[in-house]
């Protein structure tokens, strides 16, 4: 991991509040593994003060891509970046998705959770049978479908909560059937907390090996501030940034469970 000033190559508006940032970050591009994340800050100013965490969407030396949604002042500042602007980059951070070969893997993404899942697809597709469930609030939140089509997925299931595009429903709507139909052995998911809670409820005990990539408020991103606590089933706190962000689903104490 390195704390560097990198250069913005492109900051493309995708839809609604979603953007794709491409940065020139050789060290990051060389070292980031699927599941890793980076901390970004648009300027060296004092407000916003802290960097913000983002999953690695993809890398291609010397470039790294980040797919993000504007939700507050940190992401708004990042959305204002333009080609040639400097950006503060700390990474790669966190653990990675486990490696698999010859498995039937179901990836599950909710909204911007597609970011690390995209990188996982790139990693898994060549040597596994990879399926994707991808859902979001509505049409404009379900982006990058064309890009996903080129990644060698066995099958893709797309949902919007409001039915404004593809199937109306949630990522959990048909998941048990999909798992059964395709003899899924492993699931890897990323999305909002509410999605994880439903997921844990649906597939928690059905025998698949389930991995999740969590979000949490992060102060530092590398394990020193204890901001990013998540409760485990052992009734301890783990640090999402350095113990995760990838956890076994059963390790986490989901609230709804």
């Amino acid at each position, binding site marked *: 991991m*390195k*704390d560097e000033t990198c250069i913005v190559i492109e900051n493309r508006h995708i839809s609604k509040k979603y953007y794709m940032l491409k940065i020139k970050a050789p060290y990051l591009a060389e070292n980031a593994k699927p599941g890793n994340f980076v901390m970004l800050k648009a300027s060296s100013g004092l*407000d916003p003060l802290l960097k913000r965490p983002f999953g690695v969407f993809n890398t291609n030396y010397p470039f790294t891509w980040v797919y993000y949604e504007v939700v507050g002042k940190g992401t708004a500042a990042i959305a204002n970046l333009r080609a040639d602007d400097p950006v503060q980059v700390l990474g790669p951070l966190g653990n990675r998705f486990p490696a698999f070969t010859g498995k039937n893997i179901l990836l599950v993404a909710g909204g911007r959770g597609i970011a690390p899942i995209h990188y996982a697809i790139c990693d898994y597709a060549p040597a596994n049978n990879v399926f994707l469930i991808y859902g979001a609030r509505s049409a404009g939140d379900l982006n990058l479908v064309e890009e996903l089509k080129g990644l060698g997925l066995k099958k893709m299931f797309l949902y919007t909560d409001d039915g404004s595009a593809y199937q109306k429903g949630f990522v959990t709507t048909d998941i048990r059937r999909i798992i059964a139909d395709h003899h899924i052995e492993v699931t890897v998911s990323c999305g909002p907390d509410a999605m994880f809670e439903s997921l844990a409820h649906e597939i928690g005990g059905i025998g698949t090996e389930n991995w999740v990539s969590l979000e*949490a*408020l992060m102060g*530092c991103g*590398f394990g020193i501030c204890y901001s990013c606590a998540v409760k485990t089933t052992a009734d301890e706190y783990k640090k999402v940034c350095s113990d995760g962000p990838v956890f076994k689903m059963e390790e986490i104490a989901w609230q709804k469970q």
Partner: protein
Amino acid sequence: MAKTIDLSVDLGFIQLKNPIIPASGTFGYGEEFQAFFPLDILGAFVLKGIYKNPRKGNPPPRIHETAAGLLNSIGLAGPGAEELKKIIKRTASITNTPIIVNVCGESDEEYLEVAKIFDVMEEVSILELNISCPNVKAGGKCPAQDRDHTFRLVKQIKENTQKPLMVKLSPNTHDVPAVALAAQEAGADCISLVNTFLGVAVDLKKRAPVFKNVFAGLSGPAIKPLALKLVWEVAKTVSIPVIGMGGITSGKDVLEFVLVGASAVQTGTINMAEPCASVRIIKELEETMEALSITNLSEIKGRLKL
């Protein structure tokens, strides 16, 4: 950089190679930063606050960013004193920079117990007494809010330990200089301040406080003018060295704290935002001293022209 600039600082009981000391809770246990720069470049560093037993800390959310500031309610999560001893041995094996242990306690007895544990470790150079810990017997009040409690606690620690004692003051009390004086009279070797200011954040959607404990501690650039005031007042009041902190993010900030009377400084929140901040701040300090023709910090310490 010209050879003539001397960053070293003499606190009387210890000599530091420069005045930059990462602050407790914002520098982990030191070793995590070795990935970014050699710990040897620092004046010293303070470990995350430690209680006797392992502590889980508060439920999330534990931080909330405000305008140029950070509210935190980490709840002093930590592995406990025994585990920290192991970590310190590991850290000390990678650097000669003085290690400062931030001593916490829910009672005077616990403070003393923790202090004694680290007092006998040769790897530890200074004990920093974090008198801002809520005290269970005093109804949640912390020693720092009360001059007499501070005096009693510091005296007890000094009578039972050998190492230099740095007493870290809270800004959340009536008369900070009075508490500083009480610490000095009780035998403190130096004072550090400020710890965080109590603040509140509101989650509009939930119509609830952001933090379960309602209150959280405000740090970062937002508090710098308030911290400078308190450091100035305390430095005027006591004769022992004062370590200033609160919102420091640049070499210039360091010099401002020295001008109001700090012998050295601690850097907090900036270490979270920018792990390499120490490297930059030391460089900026040297450059700014050169630009302002200051060859040694003692030339300007407390020399604010009124």
